């Protein structure tokens, strides 16, 4: 695969990028923070070199980067141009980048809420549209986007954050319906609670996952061209129950 990962320097994105590099995929990183991007690119280059049993970096898979900020849509086009130039037309794109804040913080700071919803929904959709156009023009490819179980039902502790993810999941579903037959594979990833820097400080609930197992699940889903994956997988059952709970119960419980 020739993959572009937006958000591959940290958390689940980093774990996924490491797995891909180790199995020989060519990875191009997009994100913010040039120092972090360079550090992660060096890590990926080293991992692909070890796995490939290559002696020098010359024969190793490519691992480079460009700055792409979900808060600034004008960076999307140039960043994808850079990825195309480096990889020679990518065939897979993964989006793990997003903002996160607790419901309490978002309710208390509406400017933060506006920013988060703009980035996680509107700008992410615009980024995906850039990708869609490019992939369709070259006969297809795969687009993997990290949404969230928080988008499956309007819930008290994740109402605002979850509403952005709900919109994103909705968009991704429509993308799959419309372009599946033209060779575009759209994978919606719905992580449950995963122990990363994003959720640092929050008490992990039961079934909390590690980024490495999420990466394994997502990679398998990309390879098998699955449309939706819950990870850790137990969350598909948890959310099945939550989706069917009647409203009078949802009003009572804190979940």
């Amino acid at each position, binding site marked *: 695969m020739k993959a572009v990962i937006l958000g591959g*320097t*940290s*958390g689940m994105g*980093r774990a996924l990028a490491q797995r891909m590099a*180790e199995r020989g995929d060519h990875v191009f990183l997009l994100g913010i923070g040039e120092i*972090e991007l360079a*550090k*992660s690119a*060096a*890590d990926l280059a*080293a*991992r692909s*070199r*070890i*796995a490939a*049993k*290559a*002696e020098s970096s010359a024969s190793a898979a490519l691992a480079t980067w460009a700055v792409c900020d979900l808060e600034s849509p004008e960076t999307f086009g140039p960043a994808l141009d850079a990825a195309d130039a480096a990889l020679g037309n990518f065939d897979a794109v993964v989006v793990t980048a997003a903002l*996160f804040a*607790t*419901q309490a913080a978002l309710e208390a700071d509406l400017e933060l809420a506006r920013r988060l919803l703009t980035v996680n929904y509107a700008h992410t959709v615009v980024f995906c549209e850039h990708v869609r156009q490019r992939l369709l023009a070259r006969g297809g490819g795969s687009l993997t986007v990290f949404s*969230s*179980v*928080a988008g499956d039902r309007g*819930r008290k*502790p*994740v109402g605002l*954050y*979850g509403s952005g993810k709900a919109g994103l999941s909705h968009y991704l579903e429509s993308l799959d319906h419309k372009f599946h037959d033209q060779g575009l594979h759209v994978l919606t990833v719905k*992580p*449950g*609670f*995963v*122990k*990363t*820097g*994003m*959720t*640092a*400080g*929050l*008490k992990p*609930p*039961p079934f909390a996952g590690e*980024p490495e197992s999420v990466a394994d699940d997502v990679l398998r889903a990309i390879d098998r061209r699955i449309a939706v994956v819950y990870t850790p997988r137990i969350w598909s059952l948890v959310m099945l129950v939550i989706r069917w709970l009647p409203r009078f119960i949802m009003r009572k419980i*804190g*979940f």
Partner: protein
Amino acid sequence: MPPSALPAISPVPVLAAWGRIAKPGSEWLVDDLEGASLGANLSRGLGRSYGDSSLPASCTDRVVATRRANRIVSVDAGTGVLRAEAGLTLAEINRLFIPRGLFTPVTPGTKFVTLGGMVASDVHGKNHHVEGCFGAHVRALKMRLADGSLVETSPSSEPDLFYGTLGGMGLLGHVLEVEFTLKPIASPWIWMESQRVTGLEEFMESLGRAAPAWPMTVGWIDCVSLGKNLGRGILIAGRWAEKDEAPPVAPDAPRGWGMPIDFPNAALNHTSALLFNTAYYWKHWQRSRTALVSPEPFFYPLDAVHDWNRVYGSRGFTQYQCVIPRACGAVAVREFMERLTRFGTASPLCVIKDCGPEGKGTLSFPLEGTSIAVDMPVSAGIQRVVDQLNEFVIATGGRIYLTKDAFTRPEHFRAMEPRLPAFEAAREKYDPSRRLRSAQSVRLFGDRTS
């Protein structure tokens, strides 16, 4: 992603070490360790140290969890020199490098440790008599000091900081990157020889005989049976198999089982320990066995059961590990074993090992002699047991391993550690305000908690 979606189990967040001894506080999981270490009080890897060295001094202290800082900085497969962020785990290093014919020069008894933790504990392994501690193979460290500065330290650049950090329990600065040398291995298999040993004197003698012949030795010893069975056990020696001895295929990837529940506290008692030990001893009915085994069960027998610490129940446990100098002879080891066994507090987990010469780490544990490590459930009498064992160890000129310790008294530690003033001088130089601290440094070095 749902924050605090399900009700918290404990109303006050606590951090627990491997022995399940807990302190109020929480850790901060970060991807960017270099940034997050600024202003932090303690770095914490996988929390596998048994005692209180990875626990916060105060519940408001900032504890940085390093395990997501897992990036490789550079690697040279030709020379084996690897530089990586401090949170990279040995499990990952093994997964990446064993197929490549490279292995860590020194491994502790679990692969669930980070590079930073291996440095902070200056870990030793079955090959201590040949390779020394992990620190002997470290070429350089990148550190964040208490004043916020970033330094690169090595045996030739600020050696007091470098050697103070080896075995310094993370108290001189935050380890951000570790550069060390991996060793080539001829195959991914281990040639192992195990021998049933009937008593302590024979054990000591066999260990002594095995040391020059084998690069790796360790013994399981029965710390529960008294009389003629005292000190019986199984001696294990091994080396990496040569290419022509090993099967053409690599060993299967390790798979672990979880421990879904806490055992009741009463499950592990003197009777069950005695039964287990007798069965385990006689399972090795031949006098000696040889086998070609995978590195996993050889180096990390306990890693096969994740969360095996739950066997001890909610009361938790401690490990008493000490080293008794060679000069004191087998007599002192027998005396120690008799005292230990008479307490009746030992669990089946007891390991004996020959240590080679003392390393250069200022507070590094091993010295030339016999190391004994035994797990003991926490009980009302545990303080008295540790005190009495410590008094004996002090009299022999030996010492205990800080990574395992939660109960040693400061005056005992001072008495067994002539190198302490040198370490304290390094702390005074690099962290005069004692920003870096842990529950252990409060207990042993008298750091303030406010």
